């Protein structure tokens, strides 16, 4: 009945060093090989912006860009991340200046509790990198793996469409 993540019950391994690239910088984290990247980010690197939502890869709160693709970090073992690029919500700003999506989200006040927004910003960033000028239906499709419980969907969609019209970054 209980729905627990597979890694939690897999045979225990000893901690090892893993070299992972996060927001353009290399870090060595020491943890068990099947530890999800989410815990390495939040616990070992102190990057708290990536959120725990379900641990099952179902809600999108923990999305990071993994080689440019929105990917649940709760479901991504640290061994598989070594040698790849990870971008978290903290990596979206440039020299402390918020990205156009972050600016547009602020302008549209596109959140209530804001807990799901890190993952939504990650999905939206990937969308605009691939499709600079999406229509509303495409924005909704691109965000469909991200759950928002407060009901900020309309504002989020407006903010993404607005960001697409802004100057980069």
């Amino acid at each position, binding site marked *: 009945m209980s729905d627990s993540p597979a890694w939690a019950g897999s045979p225990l391994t000893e901690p090892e060093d893993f070299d992972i690239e996060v927001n353009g910088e290399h870090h060595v984290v020491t943890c068990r090989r099947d530890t999800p990247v989410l815990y390495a980010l939040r616990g070992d690197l102190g990057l708290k912006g990536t959120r725990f*939502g379900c641990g099952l890869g179902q809600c999108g709160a923990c999305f990071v860009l993994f080689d440019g693709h929105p990917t649940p970090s709760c479901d991504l073992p640290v061994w598989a991340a070594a040698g790849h690029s990870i971008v978290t919500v903290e990596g979206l700003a440039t020299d402390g200046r918020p990205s156009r999506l972050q600016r547009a989200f602020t302008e549209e006040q596109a959140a209530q509790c804001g*807990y799901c927004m890190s993952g939504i910003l990650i999905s939206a960033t990937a969308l605009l990198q691939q499709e600079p000028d999406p229509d509303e239906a495409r924005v909704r499709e691109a965000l469909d793996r991200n759950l928002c419980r407060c009901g900020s969907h309309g504002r989020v969609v407006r903010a993404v469409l607005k960001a697409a019209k802004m100057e980069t970054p």
Partner: protein
Amino acid sequence: MSAGGQSTSGTQPLLSARLEITADGFVNVFVGKVELGQGILTAFAQIAAEELDVALDRVRVFGATTARGPDEGTTSGSRSVMHAGVALRQACAEARARLLEAAASQANVPLGVLCVRDGQILDEHAQPRATYWQFAGTGLLERPASGDAKPKYPGDYTVVGRDAARLDLPDKFAGRPRFIQDLSMPGQLFGRVVRPPAPGACLNALDELAARSISTVVAVVRDGSFLGVVATREDDAVRAAELLRRHASWTEPPTLPDQRAMAEHLKSQPVEDLALARIVDESAHADVAKAIERSYRRPYVAHASIAPGCGVARWEGDGRLTVWTHSQGIFPLRSAIAAACAMEEASVVVHHVEGAGCYGHNSADDAAFDAVLLARAVPGRPVQVVWSRDDEFAWEPYGSAMVVDLRVEVDHRGDIVRWRHDVWGGGHHARPGYADIPGLLGDFEANEAVMAPAEDPSFANGAGNGRNAVPAYRIRDLDVNAHRTLTMPIRTSSLRALGATLNVFAIESVMDELAEAAGVDQVDYRVRQLPDERARAVVRAAADLAGWVHRPAGESLGWGIAYARYKNSCAHCAVVACVEAVSEVRVRQLFVAVDAGQVINPDGLANQIEGGATQAASWAVKEAVTFDRHAITSRDWESYPILRFTEAPTVTVRLLPLQHEPPLGVGECAAGPVTAAIANALHDAIGVRVRDLPLTPDRIDAAIRNA
């Protein structure tokens, strides 16, 4: 307790309990209400800036803590602006008066010539005579509130009533630490709890060896059927909890009712009856031309916050306890923790820290108490507990399953003559301290105690099952009763709007049928029966916003309207829904008109209404907690789906602000009207009425077959 808002002690609090002037030019505001994602801290900042005549960015609103007041009970029931906001406005008006008096006396000028511009106190020639900031630390506000200062005339407002950007959102969009899950304290440890597999299950046997073999595990805690683990690494706490779970055996008696017969179950239980309204008109009988009887149902509904519960606790060496929580009520939680631990309240400090969206009594209080129980094993070190998604879905207290039976009689014109409404459901209040017990999940487990049935808020506080059961329409002979079940096989408590969702769904569904039977337009029929002009105005406004008169007809397209005044005393809300329906309902658009009286932050309010409407649409078409005779079976986002981005409706809000009227609570007003408007639109689209929530394809099929 749910009475909330009024629970200050007998003596008048000091002005300094609510605000403080600092030498470096800030106003620190202390509130007892908490940020739940609704933007209340920003609204409070606007109120303070307005009354004190300072710029909004000079106001800093601090998170609530029991370490200093005020105690404003629980943040619930859409009452924060109505009560705490009014109290803050009065305190700020008084603080301004005291500051001006002090400035007049110091500068030796008549009080009447002074005015304030952003904290600068100016004379009649606009010459600066003093500033607020020079009175910092002078003890000027260390006096009881007297109630003698008159707040500003609303017509003079420049901050209140205008859009203000939320103060908390920049951190949240940047991913900066702000949530309770982000707390990182020196020596912090990570706890996980292993919950029983089912309600009523008891821990029989446990082998701790496997869990203890993880080198980072520092404690395994077992107390009755409460079981948990503490580790130095969060991922290892998750692993250890899973190993404990695999090596625990439980007795699991079948304690749950038959999900397929919930209405029959609820109506067969012992109940507490509450008469909500009774008007007797002996002459009514003679005018009855037609009667209809209908029954409406809803399932258990989960809060399903996007983050599972989290709590942090640290026991000091001397037995004092500090707790960090995203609870809606830090003072009631402190009392409950003290009672459960048999200690003095004065030895417990509870701080509020923001969590993910909160829509009622969720797992926050329980997670805090889990941290208390686990941290006791490691004195001096803070322990952070995060629930699993599985536990969140299985153990949070749900909004109760309910059933409404309606009998309505109309005259030959189709106007309502007699109305009888009976509603059954579990209680909607099991917050900490209910039933004179701590009411915390971990405490029930440690004592292997059966949970006392949830209570209902009093009628004066808006009732629970009976919330919004009394229609706003003109009715000659009326009989409305609520029946709270006194058994609780499945844990229930407060979920946004409480019983209003089903009651309004029932009332507004039947109103739709009555209008149709009378051959009158749905909007006109309601307007004709509503005695309150503000009610009629919001119904017309929603219709106008949606273009009701010229609404396009289309294959499988349907339109519906519904109205309610939340709690019969808060905001008026009318909703027009446009749906597309064949075998399933797709909610395309919601048009929401709201009269909330005075509005502090229009955009913040619109944001809350949009969110509440979208969430209610999700409840209406998708959501139901599922269970077998042993356990809850909807335990992840696949078995408990909610509306996604491709399914969420476009929501358009129109506020009818009346700045000279008192503010009316608004946070929960849309739930009932949205639910009913969608069902009415479904009927408009496919010609059948579905009276059993949620409006899923199988229920629509059943309604078509039975039509």
